[in-house]
Structures are given as C-alpha cells and as structure tokens.
C-alpha cells in the first residue's frame, strides 16, 4: 500500500519536473525565435565600415510579449475551451437515474483518490468516450459522452471514471493543459511570423541580408544567412515537433492511468471490458476535435496509428494500442483473482 503511495508521489514529482522542463524548453525556444531573428538582422545590418545599424532587438521584445500574453490566456482559458469545443454540459442537477449514478460514481472515485469531487460534464454524443481537464485536482473536470453512460454498466463506468480520476490525481491534467497552451503559442507564432515573412517583411530581411551583407564582404553576411536558414527551419518544424512531443506525453500516461484506475477501483477486469466496449463502438467520436483527442480515454479520431505497435505508431499515435491495454488489465485481474481465491 505504501508502495502505491510512493509511486504516486514519484509520478507527481515527475509531472512537476516535466512541466518545469516544458516551460524551460519553451522559454529557450522563444529566445531563439525572438532574439535569433534579431541576430539575423544584426549581422545583416553591417555596412561596409563594419558598423551595425540594427541595435534594438525588436523581434525579441515583440515575440516575448506576444508569447507571454497568449500563453497566459490559453493556460487560464484552456480547460474551459476544451469543454466548450467538445460541447460538454455541466451536470449540476442530476435528474435521471443514469445521471445520478454518474455523479455517484464520480464521487466514489474522488473518495478513493482522496480528492475533492471534480465537476461532472456530459457530452451529447452516441460514441462512448471520456476525458478529464483542468489546472489541478481542485479545479478539475471530468466529461463523459452520453454514449458511454448508455453502453457501460456501473462497474465499467467506475473503471473509466477511475482512469480519468487518475489523470487528475497524477497531475496529468495540469501538464496537458500546460503543454496545450505552449503548443498553441508556438503554432500561433510560427503562423504569424510565416505570414509576415511571406508578405513585406520577407523582402525586407532578404534585401538586408542579400544587399548589404554582400557589400560588407562575407563575414557577418555569411553568419546572417546561416542563422536565417536555421531560424526558418525551426519555425517550420516547431509546430510538428511540439505536437509529436505532446502526443508522446499523453501516450505514456494512458498505461499509468489504467493502472491507477485499477488501484482505485480494485477491479481491473471492469475497466478492461469497458475498453473493449469503447473499442467495439464503430463511429469516431464526432464531438472530439483534434485538439482534445489526446485527452480522451480512447482515440476519438479512430486513427489507424493507434491500432498498431512499433516505431511509427509510437511517433504518431496519441494512445497506446487498445489490445495491449486490455491485455495488461486482464493480466492484473487474473493476478488479483489468484491472490484472493480461497486457499484449498
């Protein structure tokens, strides 16, 4: 038991560490996007007397300001926007038997995890799926589709809610919200700068580097061109790389959340059969957009990358293969049955 608790703290510590790393990488990246651009301008602005004309790092200042504002707003508004984009409605006053049961199940899992009860949301979508979001355990929300409520029995629902509660308790939701905010900023910036470059700005920089650089006779001009090329490559690749990293983060956490759910419910078999039912549902979850896909318990887009194993699937899938998850859970259920079976 105390071993489980230690694992929890390790996992939380790892998530905190990773959040800090992401912020660090993000700052580094923006320093490069901002002040790297300034360096290009600086080295490009040497005249034939070896005098630099570009001395105030405007790009750096502007990029830093934009990044700070965008990151701040998408961090604070992120969870709300996720819920809104999925069309999730908060269940404040449960009326039907199923709704009451859902709220009860969420309460049960909150007690098992020793956390305050998260807000409960329902997404009106016939495909079974679920996700969790928020800034931390105190402000978390759990959303399930109406299809999930219909398809699963009480114990299976408990397994799925336990899985989402695990994301909350392990601080996965905080990390994912942070990552989503940072990825969003990077996409916004790289789009914005790209547009400026394609418009008038590009010609300006080109003329600067090409024209004046050549006149200054190599040295600084060459540095400017090399920096410019590197700068452009990072700008183009940044959105892709950050997205891949975000996917890798969410994939690793699914196995762990499955295990934590089993730890909370002490019923891994129920989650296994829930996953099987979710997997068997034919349609993709229409209300889950690409932006929320990595939050869901099962890939809502039904992309083939999540069915396979191997390098490519590891790169592009947001979720580990369902078959593998089910096999692991069934293994746990078997171990448990063996351990609690009456001794002959």
């Amino acid at each position: 038991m105390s071993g489980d608790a230690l694992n929890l703290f390790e996992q939380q510590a790892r998530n905190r560490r990773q959040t800090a790393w992401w912020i660090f990488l993000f700052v580094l990246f923006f320093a490069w996007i901002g002040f790297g651009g300034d360096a290009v301008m600086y080295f490009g602005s040497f005249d034939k007397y070896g005098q630099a004309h570009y001395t105030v790092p405007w790009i750096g200042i502007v990029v830093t300001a934009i990044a700070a504002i965008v990151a701040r707003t998408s961090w604070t508004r992120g969870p709300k926007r996720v819920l809104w984009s999925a069309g999730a409605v908060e269940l404040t006053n449960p009326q039907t038997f199923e709704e009451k049961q859902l709220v009860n199940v969420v309460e049960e899992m909150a007690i098992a995890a020793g956390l305050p009860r998260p807000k409960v949301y329902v997404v009106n979508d016939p495909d079974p799926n679920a996700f969790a979001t928020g800034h931390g355990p105190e402000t978390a929300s759990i959303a399930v589709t109406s299809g999930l409520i219909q398809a699963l029995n009480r114990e299976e629902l408990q397994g799925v809610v336990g899985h989402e509660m695990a994301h909350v308790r392990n601080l996965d939701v905080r990390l994912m919200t942070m990552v989503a905010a940072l990825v969003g900023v990077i996409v916004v910036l790289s789009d914005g700068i790209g547009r400026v470059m394609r418009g008038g700005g590009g010609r300006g920089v080109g003329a600067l580097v090409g024209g004046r650089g050549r006149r200054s006779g190599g040295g600084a001009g060459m540095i400017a061109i090399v920096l410019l090329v590197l700068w452009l490559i990072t700008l183009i690749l940044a959105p892709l790389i950050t997205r891949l990293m975000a996917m890798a983060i969410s994939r690793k956490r699914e196995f762990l959340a499955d295990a934590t759910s089993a730890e909370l419910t002490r019923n891994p078999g129920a989650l296994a059969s829930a996953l099987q039912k979710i997997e068997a549902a034919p349609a993709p979850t229409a209300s889950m957009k690409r932006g929320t896909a990595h939050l869901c318990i099962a890939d809502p887009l039904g992309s083939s990358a999540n069915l396979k194993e191997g390098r490519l699937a590891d790169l592009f899938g947001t979720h580990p293969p369902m078959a593998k998850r089910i096999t692991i859970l069934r293994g746990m259920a078997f171990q448990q049955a063996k351990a609690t079976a009456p001794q002959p």
Partner: protein
Amino acid sequence: MEWFLLIAVVVVVFWLVAMYNGLIALKNQTINAWKQIDVQLKRRHDLIPNLVGTVKGSMEFEKETLQAVIDARSKAMSGGGGVKETAAAEGALSGALGKLFVVMEQYPDLKSSQNVRDLQEELSSTENKIAFARQLYNDVATNYNTRQQQFPTNFVAGLAKAQIAELWEIEDQAERAVPQVDLSLKPKPQA
C-alpha cells in the same frame, strides 16, 4: 571549524523539522481519511430508515430481514469508539443490507419502482463510498505507521506524539463476500 559546526547544526535542525512536519502532515491525513469514512457511515445511517419505510409494505414476509437491518443500524449508531468496534458494527450492517438487497430481488414490483431503484442506487453508492474511504484510510494509515517506525523518523515520532493508527480490517471471509453480490442496476439499453 566553527562555521562548519554551525552549518552542521543548522542542517540537522532543518532535517529534524522536516521529518517532524512530515509526520504531522501524515497524522492529519490519517485523521482526515477517518473523518471521510465517518461522513459516509452517517449518510448510510440516514438513508436506511427511508429504504425500510419504502419497502416495508411490500415485504410483509421478510420481517426478519428488515428487523436485522434496523437492529444493525441502531447498534452501529450507538457504538462509539475505536476502529475495531466501528468496523465490526458497520460490517454487520453491511451484511444485513446485503441480505435485504438479495431478498428484494425477488419482488418484481419493488424492483420496478423508481423510488426503490433510486434508493437502492444511493445505498449501494454509499456502500461503495464507505469501501473506498476505508481503502484510502488504510493506505494513508499504513503510510503513517510505516513512517513512524522507519529509521530515522522514529526518533521524532515521540516528539510528534505519533501513535500507530489502527487499520480497518474486514474480519471474516463471509462478510467480505457480501458486497460481491451483483447489484448492478444498469437497465438494459432500450432499443
């Protein structure tokens, strides 16, 4: 040399303070986890009269089962005190309730009543909450106990007035089996 000693003393003091505070935090977590169980137990005590009142009319022939639930409830409510006593009394109540639920399965008009279904869901959810709160309490208390006994925290355990917390054990195998009865009330999806 003197500054070295000073640093060593400061480090040791900080270390002791950290261990002491860690123990106090665990102690409070344990107390809090126990209170969580208490909240759910009270809730169950409050729900039972409702259930009994609702099913009494339809279950003329099951007076004994109903009486067992009522008796177990009043016994659980009167019995204050230690973990072991509470665990025993509440365990008996769980058993009596489980039997009542099994018997209720044989009354189709009860099963189809929305009111009864809601009450039954409330009660089995409360039952689950008790089980999960107990699970959490046992985990936290085990953590607390381990920390008290471990070297070097055991040195400050006395200072923090730490005492081994009693775990909530489920005593006999039969009792443990009762909640296993399938009470999944999920209706078949209407086509």
